[in-house]
């Protein structure tokens, strides 16, 4: 270390200790910087529901508001079905739809994609009115 460097101000009275602290904090900042990424990815999920009457007639129903933005874009794609299905079941159990005439079915369609608006993954879930659960 040259003479000039010895006169440099320090935090710990030791340039070597200062360097260690600097490098440690710098390393922590680098490691944590990944957390600072925002608005760079999204999982687009779309949920629709249709009623199929006992006579086979199909009616598209307005999607309930609770399914307007499932996961608000933050869900991992592989978790979408696992997370939406219980919500559908809860909704069906508490809504008046479940008390409709026996034989009526509710076909829920979940479509989703990661970082794209072309929703190329799909899952269908059928709920039979009068049944305790869907399939």
């Amino acid at each position, binding site marked *: 270390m040259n003479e*000039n460097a010895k006169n440099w*101000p320090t935090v710990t009275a030791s340039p070597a200790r200062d360097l260690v602290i600097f490098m440690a904090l710098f390393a922590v900042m680098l490691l944590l910087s990944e957390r600072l990424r925002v608005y760079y*990815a999204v999982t687009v999920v779309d949920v629709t529901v249709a009623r199929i009457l006992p006579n086979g007639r199909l009616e598209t129903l307005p999607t309930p508001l609770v399914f307007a933005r499932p996961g608000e874009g933050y869900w991992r794609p592989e978790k979408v079905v696992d997370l939406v299905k219980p919500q559908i079941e809860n909704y069906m159990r508490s809504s008046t739809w479940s008390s409709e005439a026996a034989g009526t079915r509710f076909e829920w369609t979940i479509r989703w994609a990661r970082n794209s608006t072309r929703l190329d993954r799909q899952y269908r879930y059928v709920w039979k009115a009068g049944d305790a659960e869907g399939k």
Partner: protein
Amino acid sequence: MFRIALAGMLGWAFHSLWLQPVPPLSALPGALCVYSHIILRRPYFLVIGVLLVALAAGVRPRIVGLILFLLLLPLASLTAGQLSRQVLLTALLAFSMLRSDEQWSWRALRGDGQRESAGPIWPIRLIQVQLTLVYGVNALAKLTPAYLNGEILIGMSRMHPNFHVDLSDGFFHLASLRLPVSIAATAVVMIEAFLAVGFWLSRLVWPTAIIGVAFHLVLQRIVQIYMLDLASMFLYLAFLLSWRVPANDRVQTGQADRRGHGVA
């Protein structure tokens, strides 16, 4: 001056009414109990408030700063503001290494003798690096075809409830401007990359700060951000303020000297 501004910013950003703990801290055994009985209680915030006033007044800023860092650390794991709090805590920890009580402080008011040096410049460099990382990692994360062609922005405008605009038609409408989303997305990446680099070029510091503020003002029209934008803009001060080199240092300018070794 940075010390006073930092104390004010911390007081504002760490206001935690209605917030709840989230992992990873809340996952620790007994953490929820500690949060509900100690940390998220009025006395805890009262202590923080007193220490913030002490920091602003320059009363033993290094010790007070470090204690504040430890007290504020658990508040960085609540349901909102995690990112901005991480950024501000880094700034606080780094700044706490400096003897920042030379001016505008209780010490100066008492007329205590001048210090030889407030300390080295590297804590300020850490704060500056933190700002570069905020913009740098975001620019890098967005360097994907899906982001640059606008698909992600369109998807986010559909899914995120804090988006003020609907980009479903593939265009970003700003006043009379009708910009294809892909161009808006590319512009975002370019601006963030510029903000990561521009502050380090001495001639571009002020233009970069102006572009940064304008960028965040436009962003507020598009998406409601909790606090990260304000925390980032706050860190501009680390580049804009004069960090004077001490009298015994090699370079004696009395003005901001970005090559200097220390601050006074």
